[in-house]
């Protein structure tokens, strides 16, 4: 009797599995914009107006989708139809264009819409309409709020995340840290400081010995720098935009301040900051980065760089090989590709969002150890960065990634 019962059970189990498999095969669930052969993806980018330089991101994303359409026949047999519209970095235009994409072109999702004010203009709309607003191109912290805005997700490390990562770097590398902070008195500056304090937790009050802010309209930050130095800090955390960062570096050397100089990624630019401040003065400054510096000759012989260069040569020949935007577009497009791969034949908006919140991805142009990782409660895909030191000419990787976990 026992065997008989086992047999029935086994049969039932097999039948159930067969049914499950059968239903999985037939279970093609499509949201708007998806057919058996295509997926429509919408995007806005400033191709005109004062922020038009960012347009390179949209173009490189488009080029990447051309590549996978041609070489792999798209994703899971569906070609990607990438509709990228110009919003000129103007929020009302963004709203109009995004409504066109969602209501008229009926795209499955909006991907990499660029800019903080522009994305703010559509934030409520996207969540009301329940259309994914995936991997927006802005560093604000508000894009990672799955509880209130479950249809919106950022991509790059937010300012707050970066603040946390600096905290992690300090704890790991500095003995008995005494931190002095210079920050711009706005959302951007405060986000960094909040992140750092959050990471340090109870220790924040003891470790942070001085904080000075400045206004964007201030002519110089010299007096702030003098006060910060007088605090006796051994770590200087600079959260300022390029013009002020260059001033801070100069003053830092003038004062002969013997401290570790940490610089936020907003001002991590050789051309805009380190050169004007003096390359010698800028030696030893530490900042954080998450993807390969494509101007660094030491990676020219690596496989990922060659692959990227070949992609650029074939699909985006006008693209600037020394602009970080083109590498950025290449990477973020691969992230979406992965989401669509994971979603398989269940291409509803709900499932796309579910898979976007279920990523664990390594991309070869990322710095080693920087992963793209999300979960239903974690809408910040990139939360690890590589500390790099400026050696007077170029950036040198310090080998070990810092992460918030």
């Amino acid at each position, binding site marked *: 009797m026992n065997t008989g019962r086992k047999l029935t059970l086994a049969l039932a189990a097999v039948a159930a599995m067969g049914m499950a498999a059968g239903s999985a095969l037939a279970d093609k669930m499509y949201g708007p914009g998806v057919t058996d052969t295509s997926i429509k993806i919408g995007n806005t980018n400033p*191709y005109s107006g004062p922020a038009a330089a960012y347009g390179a991101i949209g173009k490189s994303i488009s080029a990447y989708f051309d590549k996978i359409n041609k070489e792999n026949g798209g994703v899971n047999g569906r070609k990607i139809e990438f509709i*990228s519209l*110009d919003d000129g970095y*103007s929020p*009302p235009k963004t*709203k*109009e264009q995004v*409504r066109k994409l969602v209501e008229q072109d009926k795209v499955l999702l909006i991907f990499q819409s660029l800019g903080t004010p522009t994305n703010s203009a559509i934030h*409520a709309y996207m969540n009301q309409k329940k259309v994914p607003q995936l991997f927006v191109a802005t560093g604000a912290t508000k894009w990672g709020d799955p509880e209130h805005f479950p249809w919106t997700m950022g991509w790059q490390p937010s300012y707050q995340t970066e603040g946390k990562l600096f905290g992690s770097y300090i704890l790991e590398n500095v003995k008995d840290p005494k931190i002095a902070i210079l920050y711009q008195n*706005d959302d951007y500056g405060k986000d960094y400081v909040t992140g750092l304090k959050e990471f340090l937790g109870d220790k924040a009050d003891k470790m942070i010995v001085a904080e000075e802010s400045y206004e964007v309209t201030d002519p110089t930050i010299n007096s702030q720098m003098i006060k910060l130095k007088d605090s006796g800090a051994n770590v200087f955390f600079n959260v300022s935009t390029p013009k002020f960062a260059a001033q801070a570096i100069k003053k830092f050397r003038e004062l002969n301040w013997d401290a570790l100089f940490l610089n936020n990624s907003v001002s991590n630019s050789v051309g805009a900051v380190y050169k004007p401040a003096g390359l010698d003065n800028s030696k030893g400054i530490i900042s954080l980065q998450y993807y390969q510096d494509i101007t660094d000759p030491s990676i020219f012989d690596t496989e990922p760089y060659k692959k990227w260069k070949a992609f650029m040569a074939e699909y985006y020949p006008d693209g600037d090989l020394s602009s970080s935007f083109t590498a950025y577009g290449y990477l973020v497009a691969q992230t979406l590709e992965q989401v669509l791969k994971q979603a398989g034949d269940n291409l509803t908006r709900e499932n796309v969002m579910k898979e976007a919140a279920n990523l664990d991805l390594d991309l070869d142009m990322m710095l080693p150890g920087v992963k793209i990782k999300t979960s239903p409660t974690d809408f910040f895909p990139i939360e690890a960065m590589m500390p790099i030191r400026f050696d007077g000419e170029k950036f040198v990787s310090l080998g070990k990634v810092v992460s918030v976990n």
Partner: protein
Amino acid sequence: MAVDVETITDSKLTAGAKIPVKWVAFFIVIGAILPFVVGGYTAFQGTLIMIYAIAILGLNLLTGFNGQFSLGHSAFYAIGAYTAAILVYHLNFPVYVTIPIGGIICFVAGFLFGLPALRLEGLYLALATFALAVAVPQILKSSHLEELTGGVQGLDIFRPDVPAFLVDNFGLTMDQWWYLITFVIMLLLFWAAWNLINSRSGRAMMAIRDNPIAAKSMGINTALYKSLTFGVSAFYTGIAGAIAAIVIEFVAPDSFTFQLSILLFIGLVIGGTGSIWGAIFGGFFILTVPNFAEEISTGLSYAIFGVILILVIYVMPSGFAGLVNMLRVRLRKIFRTTS
């Protein structure tokens, strides 16, 4: 023969023109039906067109009827928008109330700006207003006002739901509701502009445009009229800005750059300076043509827009309103000769 001058005088100049009732009724019927036959996105675009039309009409009162140039109307548009946003965001005002308040604040701002502008003529006035347009986005971003304006990040406005009885009885959507609100406001403002132009004040405004010295010697208080016209013009544009802020549900300094002033100016010229209803066509042009240009080529959209603009100006040198008037006269001639 001197008596003839009296008799051939255009009656419009003394008694004021009559509203062409048939055409206006036709327009109102079409406009009211439109949101129910098109989709939500198109209704939204229609709303934007009407918002631009109101702003362009405001500019037209100043430039077309009073002869004062302004490249600064994006500033008034921004003031109207921010008034609405701040009242709703910080003080929880009902959105509907903020529209007239936005207009009134702009009237005051426009009137005050009009006073120093009295000393400036033509190109110099254009430069002064240009400075205003460039300054306003920066002022909105400045850290001193950040608490109020939200700085670079801007402010969100949430629209209340469509009144329940309209949803229950007519199934009205948010897009249709705001289309209709904007439509009614636009009709009211156009009607008011029509009455203003065909009044004593309107004739004074035009007299100042055509010959300021003669106007002055006839006893028109040019300073007062010019400042008032500036105020009324800003009032119209401010109302447009307030509605725009509510319909877009968001304001940020980047929404009100100098480019907006240029767009309004283009709309004014294309619609026809000195024509009231031409403003609607102007709004239609500045909303749809850039989109159309983009469809042809993303990279060269502004170049294509420029080409279209030049062609349009070439074909209708006095704007769309001028073209229609010309066609009407020609058709009438043909009709007369054949009959």
